[in-house]
């Protein structure tokens, strides 16, 4: 186990692939930052009615989270069928929970 830390010669083809992947990740990150800034600016400017702002904020959040899952967490790659099933199952249960607590709880 001693001499493994210095060897950086991973198969060049694979290395190239990793690099391309990393460039995509960077683009993803840039988009996420842009979305975040849009969300904050929309709220800080306070020009729009909350009827419009809230759906916009939620859509921005969902898209951002999609990026996290599919790019940062590689849900798009193969071998992620079962993780995807479980995450979507979780989202399904989560939506029901939110609907229950948000809509049929009195306030």
């Amino acid at each position: 186990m001693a001499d493994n830390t210095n060897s950086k010669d991973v198969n060049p083809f694979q290395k190239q692939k990793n690099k391309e992947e990393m460039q995509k990740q960077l683009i993803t990150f840039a988009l996420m930052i842009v979305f975040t800034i849009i969300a904050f600016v929309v709220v800080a400017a306070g020009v729009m009615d909350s009827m419009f702002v809230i759906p916009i904020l939620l859509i921005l959040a969902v898209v951002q989270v999609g990026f996290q899952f599919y790019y940062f967490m590689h849900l798009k790659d193969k071998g992620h069928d079962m993780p995807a099933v479980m995450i979507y199952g979780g989202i399904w249960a989560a939506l029901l929970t939110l609907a229950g607590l948000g809509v049929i709880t009195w306030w």
Partner: protein
Amino acid sequence: MSHDHSLNPETMPSEPEKATQEGKNKFIGFWFFLGGETVLFAALFGTYIALRNSTADGPTANELFGLELVFIMTILLLTSSLTSVYAMYHLKNNDFKKMQLWLGITAILGFSFLACEIYEFTHYITEFGFTFRSSAFGSAFYALVGFHGGHVTFGMAWLIALMLRNAKRGLNLYNAPKFYVFSLYWHFIDVVWVFIFTVVYLMGKVG
């Protein structure tokens, strides 16, 4: 320990995190755990949404929240998500030192986030008298954001333990899945934060 898991250019698989049966199990099992976490946070969000206006004559969301600090915290956490992606990039390239470096940066960003959160909570308590006990809104706010903060804290402890434990022995097929699973956890925390800044802070400001 007859089977050596150490890595060299010949044995380096394209997905070291899933190369062993144990790694595959960890990978799959952890994803499933995240599915459960989704429901956990949904229940907390639901509670918050149901109670967000139950301020019992105490301060409201709009009065409390300031956007600047939240923006800083968001950028810190989003960036730390990217740095952990870099760490995984170097893991796949079998570059242990660079991986450790990026993980270190992730840790610094994570701690900065935590510091901001602690400052934020103290601010609310001392300036507004807004506590866990002052109203149902207070309870729901601290429970939701606090649970997320607790996850960050646990993640930090986990990351530090991982980095220290493996500092001297480099990457191998035994610890690669551990690093990978941590990065999944870290991204998930970021996902939760995206909804927190949207639903709690931004929507709290909008009303």
